[in-house]
């Protein structure tokens, strides 16, 4: 019996973990408890030294001084402040108007704004709730199919998971031991491509079921010129002029890929903004306008998000800031934006601070629990057991990727992202690397895959967020005065399913076209962590060696 236990400690331990987690006690403490129980058992069986658990405080300290994870509260805080700054409202109103009578226009606007919000911050709840509150009632008013409307909103909100700067990518980079900057660079194109696929789905629906996604009626389209013109020509000219200006400024630049996109966008928006402000000032003084209302409105709505994107992503991509610093600057930028819009209040800052504190606590405690578990699990060579199991899968790289993705897709039904990231990902990193899989590519594939954990009926988080803001009962529409039926939970579930399928298609695309991700290589991305620390030769101070062999620790990144 004892011999059996000693030899099969790793599988037994893993099985216990599954059972204990399913009990439904907070995951952080369940993980820690399983680690501790088996540590005590191991000491009893003579597998570990009696001092084994002395390593625990040092492990916790190791989690504490992790600069990368410091980005979690920064981006969360930024998202919570932004959500109340009214930025999403302005965007959705304006972009919805821009698409006007185009069939499916509101749905395109949701996808576009979802991608834009996602590139600004990384909080799914914020995006889904804003879009559910603003766009859903309008979509229902003009007779959108409820499944299409809810599906587009929930899915576009989850873009925040995969388009940088997302919390998922930060945690993924940390757990895989890679740089966050590279992870951002690698996820950029798949993220945009995914938004493109969503838009393509909307396009298909408009072709196949024209009634499901009507355009706005003519009288609902606003921002008209006095002569009734929509002023789109003016907007097109302004856009073209900004693009030419940006191209002209960037023509000799050495940047590529995402860096180029972000920098050009920044230059373009500065140009457009300057023109819009000058136009506004002149119109104010003389009454003569060069730009149409529409052009001015679109410019003013687009400036805050694009500026924030530059402040956060731009500085990270060009190597001006570390992701953590980018997060802090974004949080400060969001505070300034809210102040500028005269929406900053004491209550709002207090709520954002407290919500961020509790979120940080639960996320970091899952990590602490996972580290306690892994102290024992790696101690009994559990990682080798998993590695051998996975490497022996038939089909080499592809076999491994297919299996792992199906496994994670299945896990995503039950577990939320942080649990998968802290428990499962570290176990997959070793085998993936052994099989010669690039870990950034691997991380992006899993990132797209885990987005489904937000969309899976019936437990997907995005569906819950949307349920909370979608009308349950029928109500009288504020504009048309007609009685409008509520949205059923079933409609939300059915709406999400096409997007789960799109998600799977995207996973396959990233697997078969690695170039979408691999361009991150060879770009001078991110920042050299060594430059951040001020290095001075110090006499070698020996630190007490702690716990299991150092190979277990994921490589420390600053």
């Amino acid at each position, binding site marked *: 019996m004892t011999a059996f236990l000693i030899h099969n400690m790793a599988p037994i331990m893993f099985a216990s973990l599954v059972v204990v987690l*399913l*009990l*439904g*006690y*907070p*995951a952080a*403490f*369940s993980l*820690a*408890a399983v680690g*501790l*129980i088996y540590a005590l058992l191991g000491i009893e069986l003579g597998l570990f030294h009696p001092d084994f*658990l002395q390593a*625990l*405080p*040092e492990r916790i*300290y190791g989690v*504490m*001084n*992790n*600069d990368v994870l*410091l980005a979690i*509260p*920064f981006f969360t*805080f930024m998202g919570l402040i932004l*959500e109340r700054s009214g930025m999403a409202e302005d965007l959705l109103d304006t972009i919805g108007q821009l698409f006007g009578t185009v069939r499916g226009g509101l749905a395109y606007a949701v996808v576009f704004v979802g991608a834009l919000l996602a590139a600004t911050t990384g909080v799914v*709840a914020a995006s889904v*709730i804003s879009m559910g509150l603003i766009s859903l009632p309008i979509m229902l008013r003009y007779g959108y199919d409820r499944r299409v409307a809810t599906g587009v909103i929930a899915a576009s909100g989850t873009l925040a998971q995969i388009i940088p700067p997302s919390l998922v990518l930060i945690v993924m980079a940390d757990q895989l031991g890679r740089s966050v900057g590279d992870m951002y660079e690698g996820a950029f194109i798949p993220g945009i491509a995914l938004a493109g696929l969503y838009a393509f789905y909307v396009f298909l629906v408009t072709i196949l079921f024209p009634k499901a996604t009507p355009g706005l009626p003519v009288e609902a389209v606003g921002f008209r010129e006095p002569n009734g013109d929509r002023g789109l020509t003016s907007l097109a000219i302004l856009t073209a002029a900004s693009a030419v200006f940006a191209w002209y400024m960037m023509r000799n630049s050495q940047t590529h890929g995402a860096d180029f996109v972000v920098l050009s966008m920044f230059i373009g928006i500065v140009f457009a903004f300057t023109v819009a402000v000058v136009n506004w000032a002149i119109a104010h003084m003389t009454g003569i306008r060069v730009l149409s209302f529409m052009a001015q409105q679109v410019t003013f709505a687009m400036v805050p998000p694009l500026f924030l994107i530059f402040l956060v992503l731009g500085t990270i991509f060009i190597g001006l*800031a570390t992701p953590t*610093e980018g997060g*802090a*600057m974004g*949080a*400060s930028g969001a505070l300034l934006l809210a102040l500028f819009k005269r*929406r900053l*209040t004491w*209550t*709002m800052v207090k*709520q954002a*601070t*407290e919500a*961020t*504190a*509790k*979120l940080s*606590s639960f996320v*970091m*405690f899952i990590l602490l629990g996972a580290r*306690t578990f892994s102290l024992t699990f790696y101690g009994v060579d559990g990682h080798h057991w998993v590695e051998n199991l996975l490497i022996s899968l038939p089909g080499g790289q592809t076999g491994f990727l297919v299996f792992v993705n199906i496994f994670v897709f299945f896990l995503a039904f039950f577990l939320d992202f942080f*649990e998968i990231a802290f428990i499962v990902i570290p176990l997959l990193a070793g085998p993936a690397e052994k099989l010669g899989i690039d870990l950034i590519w691997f991380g992006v594939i899993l990132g797209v895959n885990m987005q489904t954990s937000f969309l899976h009926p019936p*437990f997907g*988080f995005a569906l*819950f*967020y949307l349920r*909370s803001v979608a009308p349950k009962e029928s109500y009288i529409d504020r504009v048309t005065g007609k009685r409008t039926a509520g949205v059923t939970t079933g409609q939300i579930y059915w709406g999400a399913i096409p997007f789960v399928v799109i998600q799977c298609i995207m996973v396959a695309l990233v697997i078969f076209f690695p170039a979408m991700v691999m361009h991150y290589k060879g770009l001078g991305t991110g920042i050299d962590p060594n430059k*951040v*620390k*001020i*290095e001075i030769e*110090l006499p070698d101070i020996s630190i007490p060696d702690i716990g299991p062999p150092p190979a277990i620790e994921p490589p420390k990144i600053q």
Partner: protein
Amino acid sequence: MTALLKLSRVIDACNIWIGRIVAWAILAAVIVSTVNAIVRKLFDMSSNSWLELQWSLYAAVFLLCASWTLIANEHIRIDIVNNMLPKRVRDSIDLFGHIFFLLPFATVLVITGWPFFFASYRIGEQSQNAGGLTVWPAKLLVPVCFTLLLVQAFSEIIKRIGVMRNLIPDPHAERQHAAEAEAQEIIKAMEETDTEHGAKP
């Protein structure tokens, strides 16, 4: 039992109070990090003590707010099976978890954490990074966090027994999905912000 329930209320109040105050360190970390990033770029100067201060502030937040998060029932659970069980069983699982999962975890870290801190304190350990901070205040966070959590574990046990004996109403009676609770909190906060905003000229 009444005395115990009173004790539990005092513990809860203390831990919520601590959490609410420590939470502000998030804002401090944002400011420190922003200023540090700007100063580093513009004047090409920085110091490891600022970098270390950032993560110390964050560590203080997630460690010292853990008990408050527990009181608010915001430590995430895998509730797929749990939600299908009758209330009585769920209560028992919670009680079991408090006693056999949380309590031992906190105890082990209290036992190992205090010597961990004292070892650093006694030698006045300095950060290995040039110009870094003194290490022991950060290390002190570990035992303090788990001592608070240990005390909170007792409070949770008392409350759960109280609930099971119908002495007090269940503080987590509305067991919703975590996402639902989160969404409602956000919506409530939005409404509050809006009213406040509307009240101003």
